């Protein structure tokens, strides 16, 4: 008993010392420079930041309690709830970093205590720095990217999630005119319980899914067909056709979308002009709710097919020829070859791309916003038109209507959907890419 505690004496003591006071364990291990450095850093940080951190956390919990008032004609600024929320978040990140430093300090003391227990020398300051540099090189490489991802992607995501649990919305809860409060799940409750919100949400969701599926499938098959046609052995000037058909892919998408917006304009668009000159009645391309949806899918076909065609052409050239010859020998018909050979092989090769396209189309804001702007109007919808998808609805709620909490609630539902989708996708991929992840 005595022996075992004796053998573990230094590591336990050092760890406890460091847990009580940052840097103390290092001093105990006779790493004086490191210990002092840790102590100074920890004390400087703690005493400088402690009041700010306290304020930040308090702000995060209360979201401010001094409303802006007008006293005798003068505006007396109150708390700005949203800024307090952000300060709170940043504080939280810093506290987590400090906690990480604290944990590392204990771990380091224990590690060096272990060395002493085993009767080995404890590395000096310069030696430790050198070792850390070698071991942590990959982390050093990842540091800038991590910071970027943290502040540009993760922080906004967390902030966004938090907003959904507040009442941050026009007209009554816009800082710094008035305060914002935590309201729990009430926003979600409203979304599903209030008739108009529910109608809007489900209506848009259904169209969004239909749009994503229809656009992905239509582009897939038109791309495959076009590739098959261009690669048909009897077709001449293959290079010419391929160049022509790839063109829409090379033109910047927003330009094509805007051009189509003008071309298909109901009253002065050139396309309807031609149709009228041909003696037919004009088509309500963008003004009829159903027709507008069809138009969106057609316009998407126009500029998305070329990419798939180029991709499929590549896939088709790698198709094993002997399989087709074997099928011919067995008396397979053309359609049999297509459905039993070409389609499965192409699908297997392009499945990841299809999933990416689906995810992209699901949130294809540019197309919807620039082509139709969500119009034509839908009388039953809150802040949305007939062709709006979830992301453009969120955009409108945020930038035009200041319905921040509802926008966040809807985007959380989208987050969940996307996460489930990508996890499932990742699982599926992992089975084929096992060796890469180890």
């Amino acid at each position: 008993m005595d022996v075992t505690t004796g053998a573990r004496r230094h590591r336990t003591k050092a760890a406890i010392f460091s847990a009580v006071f940052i840097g103390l364990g290092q001093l105990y291990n006779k790493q004086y420079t490191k210990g002092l450095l840790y102590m100074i850093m920890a004390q400087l940080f703690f005493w400088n930041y402690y009041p700010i951190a306290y304020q930040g956390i308090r702000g995060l919990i209360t979201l401010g309690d001094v409303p802006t008032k007008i006293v005798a004609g003068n505006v007396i600024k109150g708390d700005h709830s949203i800024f307090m929320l952000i300060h709170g978040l940043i504080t939280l990140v810093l506290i987590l970093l400090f906690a990480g430093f604290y944990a590392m300090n204990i771990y380091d003391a224990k590690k060096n205590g272990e060395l002493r227990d085993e009767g080995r020398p404890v590395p000096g300051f310069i030696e430790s720095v050198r070792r850390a540099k070698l071991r942590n090189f990959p982390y050093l490489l990842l540091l800038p990217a991590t910071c970027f991802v943290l502040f540009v992607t993760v922080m906004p995501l967390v902030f966004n999630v938090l907003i959904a649990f507040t009442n941050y919305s026009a007209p009554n809860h816009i800082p710094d005119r008035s305060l914002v409060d935590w309201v729990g799940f009430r926003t979600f409750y409203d979304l599903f319980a209030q008739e108009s919100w529910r109608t809007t949400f489900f209506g848009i969701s259904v169209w969004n899914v239909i749009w994503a599926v229809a656009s992905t499938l239509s582009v897939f098959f038109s791309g495959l067909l076009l590739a098959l046609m261009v690669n048909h052995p009897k077709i001449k000037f293959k290079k010419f056709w391929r160049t022509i058909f790839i063109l829409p892919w090379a033109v910047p998408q927003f330009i094509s979308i805007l051009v189509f917006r003008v071309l298909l304009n109901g009253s002065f668009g050139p396309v309807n002009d031609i149709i009228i000159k041909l003696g037919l009645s004009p088509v309500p391309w963008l003004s009829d709710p159903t027709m507008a949806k069809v138009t969106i899918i057609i316009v998407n076909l126009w500029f998305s097919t070329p990419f798939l065609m180029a991709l499929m052409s590549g896939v088709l050239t790698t198709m094993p020829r002997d399989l087709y010859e074997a099928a011919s020998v067995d008396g397979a018909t053309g359609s049999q070859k297509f459905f039993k050979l070409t389609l499965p092989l192409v699908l297997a090769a392009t499945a990841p791309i299809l999933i990416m396209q689906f995810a992209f189309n699901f949130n294809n804001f540019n197309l919807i916003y620039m082509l139709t702007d969500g119009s034509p109007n839908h009388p039953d919808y809150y802040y949305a038109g007939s062709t709006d998808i979830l992301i453009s609805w969120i955009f409108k709620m945020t930038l035009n209507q200041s319905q921040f909490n509802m926008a966040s609630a809807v985007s959380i539902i989208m987050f969940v959907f996307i996460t489930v989708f990508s996890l499932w996708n990742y699982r599926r991929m992992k089975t084929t890419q096992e060796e890469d992840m180890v």
Partner: protein
Amino acid sequence: MSKLLNNLVVIGIYMVFAVLLITTIYPLIWVVGTSLNPGNTLMVSTMFPDQPTIAHYVDLIRNTDFVLWFTNTITIAIANAVLSTALVAATAYAFSRFRFKGRQQGLMTLLILQMFPGFLSIMAIFVLLLQTKLLDTHLGLILIYAGGSISMGTWVMKGHFDTIPKSLEEAAYIDGASHTETLFKIILPLSLPAITFVALNSFITPFMDFILPQIVLRSSEKMTLAQGLYNMVANETNSSFTTFAAGAVLVALPITFLYMYFQKYLIHGITAGADKG
């Protein structure tokens, strides 16, 4: 019989091609035609104007902020390309060549983040930039673009790094090279296709993207091309369509050539990324 059918198929294909040719080319020719058409309205515009004029181009450059938008976009594009490529290369190198704690979780995180378009948290970005005084600055936009490109580019770049045989570096290490030296002298030069893909993509994004600039850049003199052109079309008076057409041609021409030229890199880059994840 079978030969007849075959011929019919070929004729059918040519007919389809003819239709596609018209639908593909028509919008493109229409824009060019309109931009060269005298007069300001669409009603009088014909596909092939009798007396082509460059008045709209002159008008575009003299009377709108087009040149300014163009410089803005180029600045953002170059800064974004440099910053993104550096970030992505460092990240991909770490993931490809080192085995460390949290590596798998890191890769997984990137994969999931890639699925979230940056603009999903529009409102958060808006408020965060406002807080950090980066709203309505190009720097703010560049930082957001660069942050977004990491999750997208890293997998492509890592996929490419993985195909470079390790024996090359091991030889270099034996000769006393450091990690940084092998990265710059061996891995990067061998990964030109992947680097081109990432750099090109980040260069082109500011030309194509609309939603992020619309959130970040508020004043007219800071806008990018996409915003400026959208505003020309969005206000439904049809007088500015001809100017828009001129602008559209000026923007589309160089990018179209760029895309056609780098076709292979761009299409295969996406496939390579998808293969690996």
